[in-house]
C-alpha cells in the first residue's frame, strides 16, 4: 500500500507525457516555419538572420582576404572583411563574423540553414556554384600564380617538372588540371596551411594558387619566387542562399557599386594588394 501511494497516479503521468509531446510539437512548429515568418518584413526587408546585424560566414584564416585581427571592429580584417565592414556600415548594421569550414559554406548548408546572411570567403564565381548559390557582382579578379623555390630554375608552368600542389576544389586546381604539362603530378591539399609546409619539405615542387596568397609566401620567405601569373577571367563573389535573399543581394550590389564610384573600394584594395609585384 505504502509503495502505491507514493507513486504518481497514472492519469497524472499520462498528463505529463501528453504535455511533453505537445511541447515537442510546439517547439518543432516554431523551429519550422513560424519563427522564420516573424523576422520577415523587418529591417527594411533584408530578412536578416539576426535583426540589426549583418552575419557573415567565412573560412578563416585565408590571408590577405580574411584574418583574425583583434584591433578590427568585428575581430577580423582582410580584403573581404573590410569590404563587409564597409557594407555593414552603409546598411547601418553591426557586422558579425562566423568562422565556418569551406565545405559547409560551399555546400550551401550554412547559408541554407540560416546560420549567416551571406558568405564572404574569397569564393570564385563558377557556373557550377552559381547553380546552388546566388552570387553578388564580382568584387575581386583573381589571378592564379605559380610559386617555386628560387633555386629550382623553373621559369614558367611549361618548364615545371615534378609534383605540383593545388588547393582542393579551387579554381587553381581546375586551371592546373587543364594547363599543366604532361608528366606533372597534381597533388591536392585541403588548404594553404598544408600546401606551404609540403613545399618546404619538398614533397611538392611548386604551388599553383591565388596570386595574393603566393605573394604572401614570398614576402615571408624570399627563397621562393612567383614565376608566372595567369589571367583566368574569374572573379570572387559574395555567396547567398539560392533565391532566398534577393533584397540583401540587391543592397550588397548597390553598395559595392557605390564603393567603386566614391573610391572606397580602391582604398581597401590598395590596403592589401598595392605592394604586390
Amino acid at each position, binding site marked *: 500500500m505504502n509503495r502505491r501511494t507514493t507513486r504518481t497516479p*497514472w492519469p497524472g503521468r499520462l498528463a505529463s507525457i501528453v504535455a511533453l509531446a505537445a511541447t515537442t510539437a510546439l517547439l518543432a512548429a516554431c523551429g519550422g516555419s513560424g519563427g522564420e515568418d516573424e523576422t520577415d518584413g523587418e529591417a527594411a526587408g533584408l530578412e536578416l538572420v539576426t535583426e540589426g546585424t549583418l552575419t557573415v560566414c567565412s573560412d578563416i584564416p585565408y590571408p590577405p582576404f580574411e584574418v583574425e585581427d583583434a584591433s578590427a571592429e568585428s575581430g577580423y580584417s582582410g580584403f573581404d572583411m573590410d569590404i563587409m565592414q564597409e557594407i555593414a556600415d552603409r546598411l547601418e548594421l553591426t557586422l558579425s563574423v562566423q568562422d565556418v569550414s569551406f565545405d559547409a559554406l560551399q*555546400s*550551401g548548408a550554412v547559408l541554407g540553414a540560416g546560420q549567416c546572411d551571406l558568405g564572404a570567403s574569397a569564393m570564385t564565381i563558377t557556373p557550377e556554384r552559381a547553380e*546552388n548559390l546566388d552570387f553578388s557582382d564580382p568584387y575581386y579578379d583573381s589571378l592564379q600564380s605559380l610559386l617555386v623555390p628560387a633555386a629550382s630554375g623553373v621559369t614558367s608552368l611549361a618548364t615545371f617538372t615534378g609534383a605540383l600542389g593545388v588547393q582542393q576544389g579551387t579554381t587553381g586546381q581546375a586551371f592546373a588540371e587543364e594547363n599543366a604539362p604532361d608528366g606533372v603530378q597534381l597533388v591536392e591539399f585541403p588548404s594553404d596551411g*598544408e600546401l606551404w609546409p*609540403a613545399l618546404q619539405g619538398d614533397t611538392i615542387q611548386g604551388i599553383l594558387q591565388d596570386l595574393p596568397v603566393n605573394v604572401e609566401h614570398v614576402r615571408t620567405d624570399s627563397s621562393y619566387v612567383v614565376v608566372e601569373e595567369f589571367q583566368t577571367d574569374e572573379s570572387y563573389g559574395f555567396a547567398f542562399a539560392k533565391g532566398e535573399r534577393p533584397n540583401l543581394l540587391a543592397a550588397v550590389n548597390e553598395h559595392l557599386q557605390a564603393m567603386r564610384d566614391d573610391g572606397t573600394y580602391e582604398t581597401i584594395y590598395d590596403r592589401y594588394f598595392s605592394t604586390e609585384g
Partner: protein
Amino acid sequence: MRLRRTTRRRLVRGALYAAFVAALIVVVLAADWQRFAQYFLQWDIAREQFPEIITIALKNTLVFTVVSFVGGLLVGTLMALMKLSSIRPYRWFATAYIELFRGLPALLTIFAFAYMLPIAFGVKLPFAPVGAGLLGLIVVAGAYMAEVIRAGIQAVPKGQTEASRSLGMSPLKTTFFVILPQGLRIIIPPLTNEFVLLLKDTSLLFIAGSTIFTKELTTFARDATTTNSNGTVLVMAAMLYLLVTIPLTRVVAYLERRMARAR
C-alpha cells in the same frame, strides 16, 4: 476508480509508445524536406559521382583501412610483446611508444609524418604523400592495438604456457603457436572496433595531400561538395561508410556467437 495493476501497466506502456510515435511523426512532419533535398539530395549530382565514388573513393578507403589495420596489428603485436618482455629497455621503449602515439590526435601524427619528417630529416617516404599518411595511421593503430593485444595475451591462462613449456616447446614457439592464437581470439571484438575506427580515420589522410587517384571517401565527397556547391555527396559518403561498417560488425557478432558455441 481503481485499476488493476496489470491494466495500469499496459495503459502506461501504451501511452509511452503513443508519445514516442507522436514525437516521431511531429519531427517528420515538421522537417522541410524539400529544402533538405535541395541542399543534400540532388539526384543528378548523385548520379554524376558514379562510378568514381566506388572505384576510386570507396576502394581507396578500404585499401587504406586494410593496409593500416594489418600494419597496426604487426606493430601492435611487436609492442605488446616488448611491453611484456623481461628485458627492461624493451619495456621502456614500448611504454614510451604507446603513451606517445595513443596520446596524440591521429591528425597531428599524420601531419607529423607527412610534413615534419621531410622538413626535419629530408626523408622522403615512398608513395608520398599517401605513404606518409598511411605510416602515421599505422603508428597510431599500433599504439592502440598494442594495449588490446597485451590484454589478450594476459587473458590466456598461465597453465597454457606451463603446459607447452613442459611439452618441450621453446619460449618463442610457445608465444607464437600457443599464446598468441588464443589471445587474438579473445580480442576479436576490440579488434573489430579498431578496424571500424581506422576505417573512419582514413578520412584524416586528406591532411597529407591527395591526387585524383588517391582520394578516399571523405576527401572525394568534400571535393565534390566544393565543385557542386551542394552537400549531396557528403550524404552519399556517409551512407557508404555505414554500408561497410554495419554489415561488418554484424558478421563479426555472428562469428563470435559461432565460436562461443564451438568452444
